[in-house]
């Protein structure tokens, strides 16, 4: 290797790192600038209620699904059915709680939560089996299951009735336990709510799984090059199917939190949330093809999108401009990603 070639190689590596870093940092810088301007301009932005009780608590449930989605997308997959899965899980939860009410409220809730988790995982397993073992394109599979799951929801609710926990006291308790429960964080005034606690717990577990276990490394390997991973002896099909089941589990958790917040389960709820989730993952920096990315990135992407949504309300922006702004952000972030990739390949 001549010196010139060596130089070029080093340059390429160097610019790759710095550009990547710059790109990641740019989202953080953007977040910081947005936060600073918003705090200066709106007296209600930088308050504990707005940021923690409103913004982060609302973001937590969507964020939990985004954690599962990150696993699926790093392995090169895609899941459009998450919102429908979440809706079905909420409905199943209400139906089982109502059916088990005679056994006592606590037992009913615990059994129902377990059953809901199983349902979420099972629906994920349907996606996983079709994608990994049958080999159908994940977009097609999850697009179809999205309709099917919505249909399940409609069937379970007799055509779209609102489902609520039948006992009024239990309905209130359920919300108290799973949503309004607050953990004193910095004294009595600054408390964090249950969804945030659940999110942090799942985030840590997910981080451990993805970064520190063989399972996590296999997921990256499959996203990077499935063939190579298979040749290296990885059971790629099983791992891929597992990512969808994980994603289904996160849908079940989110379904329970949504139910606790709204006290109602609807077959047609969360329309379009699958796209919010995918947007958060992509804006964070996990590419559609998989192979790289991570949970921290997803968290940053999620917070960026949610902060912007919150600001649009804070600054009284008309409903018609909101999707435009969200769409533009995704577009710009992904465009930068593509440009950076092109640059590093040169």
């Amino acid at each position: 290797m001549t010196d010139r070639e060596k130089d070029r190689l080093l340059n390429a590596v160097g610019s790759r790192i710095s550009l990547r870093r710059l790109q990641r940092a740019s989202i953080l810088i953007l977040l910081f600038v947005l936060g600073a301007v918003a705090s200066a301009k709106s007296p209600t932005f930088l308050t504990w209620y707005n940021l923690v009780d409103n913004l982060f608590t609302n973001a937590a449930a969507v964020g939990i699904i985004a954690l599962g989605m990150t696993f699926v997308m790093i392995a090169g997959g895609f899941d459009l059915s998450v919102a429908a899965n979440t809706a079905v899980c909420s409905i199943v939860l209400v139906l089982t709680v109502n059916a088990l009410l005679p056994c006592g409220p606590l037992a009913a809730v615990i059994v129902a939560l377990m059953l809901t988790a199983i349902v979420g995982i099972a629906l994920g397993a349907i996606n996983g089996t079709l994608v990994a073992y049958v080999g159908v394109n994940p977009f097609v599979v999850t697009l179809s299951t999205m309709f099917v799951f919505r249909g399940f929801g409609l069937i379970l609710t007799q055509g779209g009735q609102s489902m609520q926990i039948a006992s009024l006291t239990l309905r209130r308790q359920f919300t108290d336990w799973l949503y309004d429960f607050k953990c004193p964080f910095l004294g009595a005034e600054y408390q964090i709510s249950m969804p945030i606690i659940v999110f942090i717990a799942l985030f840590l577990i997910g981080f451990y799984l993805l970064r520190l276990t063989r399972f996590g490394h296999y997921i990256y390997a499959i996203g990077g090059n499935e063939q190579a991973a298979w040749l290296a002896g990885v059971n790629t099909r099983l791992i891929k199917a597992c990512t969808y089941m994980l994603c289904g589990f996160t849908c079940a958790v989110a379904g329970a939190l949504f139910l606790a917040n709204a006290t109602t389960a609807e077959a047609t709820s969360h329309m379009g949330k699958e796209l919010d989730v995918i947007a958060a993952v992509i804006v964070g920096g996990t590419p559609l093809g998989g192979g790289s990315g991570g949970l921290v990135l997803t968290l940053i992407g999620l917070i960026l999108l949610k902060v912007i949504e919150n600001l649009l309300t804070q600054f009284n922006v008309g409903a018609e401009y909101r999707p435009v702004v969200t769409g533009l952000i995704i577009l710009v972030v992904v465009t930068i990603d593509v440009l950076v990739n092109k640059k590093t390949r040169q």
Partner: protein
Amino acid sequence: MNINKSTRFAALVLLAVLVLPMLGCRDRGTRNRQVGFLITLDHPYWHNMRLGAEDQGKKLGVDVTVLNAREDPVLQIEQIKEMIAKRVDIVCLAPMKKEPLVRGVQMLNEANIPVIIVNREIGEGCSYVCFVGTDTYSGAVTSAKILAEAMGGKGRIVEFHQHLGSGPELARSRALRDVLKDYPAIEPVARIPHRGDRDFVKTQMQTLLQKFPDMAGVYAHGDNFAIAAAQVCVNSGRTDIKVVGMGGSQEAIEAVKDGLITGTSYQQPEQEGRLAIELAVKYLNGETLEKAYPIECPPITRDNAHRFKGQF
């Protein structure tokens, strides 16, 4: 380090797009009164309510924040939280569903933010200042009566109903049942949910015409769907079938004039939005309000259609 020019440019554009409009926002040191207006925008009806509300807000010097819950009560409860976080002075709420939104209003009660319920009913267990809205039930009764009279009090009818379990759906279904008590010879033979989709109504209507050749009337929750059903009747040469809608949109008034549909009842969304904001400001000024402000829905038939101008 060698940063791509276009990358830098794209980053700058992103920053500019986001930050510049915010710099332009009015400093809220001298903050107007804030009104949260939580509705859905999935039908032109709501757009006109929103226009009325925003216009009235401008006239009275209050800031109106309109949020679109897209018929989803779960989303609407999140939006209520946003309103509490924004510390609005009062909220005008169109509850997407009657029972589920009780929790949302309770949250506003706890935060000491007064609530005016707009257009749709709310369940028990929460407190609000007043209700303002179209009297959906009496409007539906008007439409049902037009249909029954036009049919001469006998025959088979089909009902196209909307979002199951929503306030208007319940009221309109109840209105039909109540009116039919006076017309025992009228027999409802099918109930089809239309989910807000004209094409769906058309396909269903074609099927129903085959299935019930002796059909004499259509009771549609909403003008759009009445028009869709009537067009199918005309195409199949069944102009004898009487079709009524409810709402009184511009298109429907034209359709009544042309004789495409038999009649409809006249709702005034713009008026609803205006009145809601007006009452909100009155309440904030300390005036005492009535508990309910129903807005009447007069009948529109071929005889009087020329006197109406649709608000949506």
